[in-house]
């Protein structure tokens, strides 16, 4: 099929600029979500969800984060009603909806593939949910015009879906769900098919839409940067189990275990060989810890965030001092990353580019780190 008239990309201007006036017919009623002991198994031994307990507050931007196959999409599909849990309960807005089919749930989904209907115009796509819900033609027209203006794609409503660019399709898919004014909006990796630039733009836009509408958003992604940028809270999943729930800074700075730490992009994890009240032994040597980091268990991991390390210069009193050799230097513009070798193990250091002298590969350097910045992580 040919595309006779390629749609020009609509120039992005901030449609949700808070200073702009607009009448607020868009939804305000948000629902909380409660999951109680949700289990789901595919076939004999593929456990997708292994007892998930979770509460998502009304009006929250909540992200399910994890590698592929961790169960995050299954969880989202259970919320939508497209999958039935084997066990457990699902409450939306305090109401048990576990056995309610998808078309009777006030929940709408933005699908990863967008799943726009190719046989319908953009307008009919947007009106689909309202039509199925039996709203009058006049009501439909009013709401579709409103949502099209809201996402700034009003000029495209007569187009066919195959005449839209990827970014436009994404926005139409979002609008098609928003126009139904659901209590909960589910988003299944909606940005994964877009190029990096557009993706960043839509991350900001999505977050603003959510804040403006005060709707509960449940967002699924495998990209920890995306999750941190957008979310109020993040749940990190692995093998059908929730590993940690917390704000982006909690999850990033204080991961509860090595899986979460690695998934959040931390490289500097060192196995703890021995520990006492205020020190640990690792391959790097003995390091002083803040007393607050005391743990009952001896073993586990030590997390050193690369941006907390100071390279060269004076070592302030009480700081840990390490010596290593620069093995690799990555110049990233705003920051510079070094890979050091200390006692035969790698240590990543990230410094802001403030115009200081760069260390060359092969240089012997001193590294200092405040004891308070060292974090103990469970295995």
């Amino acid at each position, binding site marked *: 099929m040919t595309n006779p008239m390629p749609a020009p990309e609509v120039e992005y201007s901030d449609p949700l600029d808070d200073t702009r006036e607009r009448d607020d017919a868009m939804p305000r009623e948000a629902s909380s979500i409660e999951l109680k002991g949700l289990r789901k198994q595919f076939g004999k031994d593929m456990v997708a969800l292994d007892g998930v307990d979770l509460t998502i507050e009304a009006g929250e931007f909540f992200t399910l984060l994890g590698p592929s196959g961790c169960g995050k999409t299954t969880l989202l599909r259970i919320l939508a009603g497209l999958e039935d849990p084997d066990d457990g309960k699902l409450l939306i807005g305090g109401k048990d909806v576990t056995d309610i089919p*998808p*078309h009777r749930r006030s*929940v709408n989904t933005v699908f990863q593939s967008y799943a726009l*209907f190719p046989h319908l115009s953009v307008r009919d796509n947007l009106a*689909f949910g309202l039509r*199925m819900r039996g709203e009058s033609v006049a009501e439909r027209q009013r709401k579709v015009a409103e949502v099209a203006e809201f996402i700034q794609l009003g000029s495209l409503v007569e187009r*066919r879906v195959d005449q839209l660019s990827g970014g436009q399709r994404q926005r139409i898919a979002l609008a098609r769900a928003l126009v139904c004014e659901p209590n909960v909006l589910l988003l299944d990796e909606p940005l994964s098919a877009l190029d990096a630039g557009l993706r960043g733009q839509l991350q900001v836009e999505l977050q603003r839409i959510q804040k403006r509408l005060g709707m509960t958003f449940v967002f699924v992604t495998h990209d920890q940067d995306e999750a941190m940028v957008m979310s109020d809270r993040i749940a990190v999943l692995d093998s059908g189990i929730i590993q940690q729930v917390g704000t982006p800074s909690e999850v990033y700075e204080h991961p509860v275990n090595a899986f979460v730490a690695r998934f959040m992009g931390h490289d500097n994890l060192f196995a703890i060989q021995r520990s006492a009240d205020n020190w640990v032994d690792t391959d790097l040597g003995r390091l002083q810890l803040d007393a607050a980091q005391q743990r009952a268990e001896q073993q586990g991991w030590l997390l050193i965030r690369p941006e907390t390390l100071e390279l060269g210069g004076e070592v302030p009193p009480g700081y840990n001092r390490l010596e290593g050799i620069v093995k690799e230097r990555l110049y990233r513009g705003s920051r510079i990353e070094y890979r050091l070798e200390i006692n035969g193990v790698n240590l990543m250091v990230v410094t802001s580019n403030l115009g200081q002298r760069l260390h060359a590969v092969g240089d012997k350097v001193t590294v200092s780190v405040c004891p308070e910045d060292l974090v103990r992580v469970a295995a």
Partner: protein
Amino acid sequence: MADMSLVVRGRAVVSETRHLLFSVMPGAVWIIVFLVLPSVYLMAVAFMTNGPYGQPQMPLSLESFRQLAGFGFLGWSPGNLYTLLRSLWQTLLSTVLVVIVAYPIAYYITTCREKWRPIMLLVVVVPSWTNQVIRTFGWMNLLAPGTPLSDAAQALGLIAPNMGLYPSNFAVTLGLVYNFLPFMVLPLYAAFEKLDTAQVQAAQDLYASPVRAFWHAVFPQTLPGLLAGTVLVAIPAFGMYVIPELLGGGKGMMLGNLVANQFAGSANWPLGAAGAILMLIATFAGLFAMRRIGKRLGGGEEVVI
């Protein structure tokens, strides 16, 4: 210099034209000799007069069309009209039944695991590899008087005692549905396979019950397949000869049989030619209607016929 380049370009055009001519020639000759010329001949015959031995002869007349309309030397009889109406009805009925049977089959195959799908399609197609006449004889054996199926139909009071399900119009319809099923299943399967299953879920997510999800999200997208299948089923069914000949008996005759009889038994070539032209016109009218419907319903998705 300018003249030189012109000459060169002129030569290139000539050689390209010649090249095209040579590559198209065999096919064109084939079509002209075996399709265009016989059709022209048939048309000429239709306007001729029937000779004493059934051979077409001068003068030109519209006599054969008069006969086709039912005017014989005994006055008007509705026989041919019935045959035409029966052909249309059998075509319509069998096409509708084929659609009803083929939709679930095609959909079911798309829900099967990927490695099973070619096998399932093969199962649908394999019967059509056997000669049509042989398969139709098979149905004769299944539907004849005294067979379990006929006995069951008698017990239910559907047919008179000591009669069989064959010969009858019912047997013709059954034969047509059976014969043309693969031609509907395949294009529908292709349409279903192109469909993104996420769209069905999206429809349900957007408050459509399963039935409405099918009707509003799935069915419109299978229309190109449905139209292609309809063309593949309805047109050959309309001109079908073997099935009504074998399963229909005297009251099951269709237009194809009428035409064949004029060329063989009754020996009235001009009348047969007139019937053939009527079939041709009906076919083109049907195709034209399909195209119009396809363009309206399928949006930009052109149904290639």
